[in-house]
């Protein structure tokens, strides 16, 4: 591993200055559960790691009437142990509680999961179906980007030179909102998704009709996929309409563009996407009604 310096700035501005100076020879470290493995594996040579956990904004969780915003360095356990947050943002809770084991969840967070931009990232689909926005700071100031536009390829993201993911923010879900994420893995825990599906629905006031829906897929394309046709197949339909749920499942399978690799084949992955989409729609509806 290339010997790197350790820099722990106290403000976003200092962190951006360091990242801008070093370019791709420096990377932020939050949980380090991907970064240190990749640095050891020789994926990149670093001159510096920038510990972002001393910056209060990157460690804070704000959950109020207008919505949720949490810092890019917040670890998974702080999300799922927060009972109010877990109840209001069930898709985010699902993701935070199934990434890695307990040791990983003590350190790894959804900000890092998003920046790592792996196609199989369990956290990214749930951020998308909760209508997440990435808040990015850079040398030229701040900008915001919808989470579904953040990943640009396997391991590549939309951050430019000197930019840092500061936080993720989400609109407050309505009382008839539900979301869920599940993945298929051959083990019970501690594995990388063969395929994963996140779904959110917003129901009418009488909880019978689907007003809004989003379906996002993991591990079946070079980036996480927002399967818009799958969500659209549910709009205006009864939440118990099996034909609509089947149509959404088929649309999700069509949106999946998987490859065959050691974890699964194209056919298996498309089948899994269809099955998981239907299951997650039912689970999201059930949660929206409870």
């Amino acid at each position, binding site marked *: 591993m290339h010997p790197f310096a350790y820099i722990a700035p106290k403000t976003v501005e200092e962190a951006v200055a360091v990242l801008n100076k070093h370019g791709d020879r420096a990377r932020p470290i939050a949980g380090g559960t991907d970064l240190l493995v990749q640095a050891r594996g020789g994926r990149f040579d670093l001159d510096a*790691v920038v510990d972002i956990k001393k910056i209060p904004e990157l460690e804070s969780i704000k959950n109020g009437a207008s919505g949720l915003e949490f810092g890019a360095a917040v670890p998974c356990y702080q999300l799922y142990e927060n009972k109010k947050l877990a109840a209001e943002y069930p898709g985010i809770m699902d993701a935070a509680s199934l990434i*890695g084991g307990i040791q990983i969840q003590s*350190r790894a967070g959804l900000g890092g999961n998003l920046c790592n931009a792996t196609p199989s990232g369990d956290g990214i689909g749930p951020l998308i179906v909760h209508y997440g926005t990435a808040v990015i700071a850079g040398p030229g100031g701040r900008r915001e980007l919808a989470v579904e536009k953040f990943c640009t390829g396997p391991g590549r993201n939309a951050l430019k030179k000197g930019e840092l993911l500061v936080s993720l923010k989400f609109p407050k879900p309505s009382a008839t909102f539900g979301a869920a994420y599940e993945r298929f893995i051959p083990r019970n825990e*501690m594995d990388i998704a063969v395929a994963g599906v996140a779904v959110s629905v917003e129901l009418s006031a009488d909880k019978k009709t689907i007003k809004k829906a989003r379906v996002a897929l993991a591990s079946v394309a070079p980036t996480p996929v927002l399967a818009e046709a799958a969500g659209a197949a549910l709009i205006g339909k009864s939440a118990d309409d099996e034909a609509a749920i089947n149509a959404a499942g088929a649309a999700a399978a069509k949106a999946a563009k998987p490859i065959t690799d050691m974890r699964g084949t194209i056919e298996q992955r498309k089948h899994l996407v269809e099955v998981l989409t239907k299951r997650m729609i039912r689970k999201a509806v059930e949660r929206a009604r409870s």
Partner: protein
Amino acid sequence: MELPQRVHVRTTINGQAQEFLVPPYMSLLDTIREIAGLTGTKEGCLDGNCGACTVSIDGRIVDSCLVLGAEVDGKSITTVEGLATAKGLHPLQQAFLEEAALQCGICTPGFLVAAKGLLDNEPDPSEERIRHWLAGNLCRCTGYDKIVRAVQKAATASH
């Protein structure tokens, strides 16, 4: 080539204040083993899959191979050496012996620290909860059943 400057770290390990200069790229695992001289914590996979290097930082269990030594300034660390007291073994260590929950022993320090992290917060976990909690620790000898039984026994013993 010029090496980056060492980082000054003040920390507490097993209740004892420690102060050292650590190379900025050195893992917490190597810091504990090579600098603090505590070799109970083991290196297994070195990529966060096996849990052999589990220690706790401020009461949260982590894989010490995926933490930098430089990150623990101001934190409190517990390793397997911090479990037993002058009075004797920790109830988990005693239960591991009685239930034969170890064979080669490489995974054992990690399992002990991880299980302590569970029992410190949840004194009476279900079998399912224990298995889920310990999913980040691999053992290639015991088949896990004996380890789970030992954790259940320690939980009962400490009531």
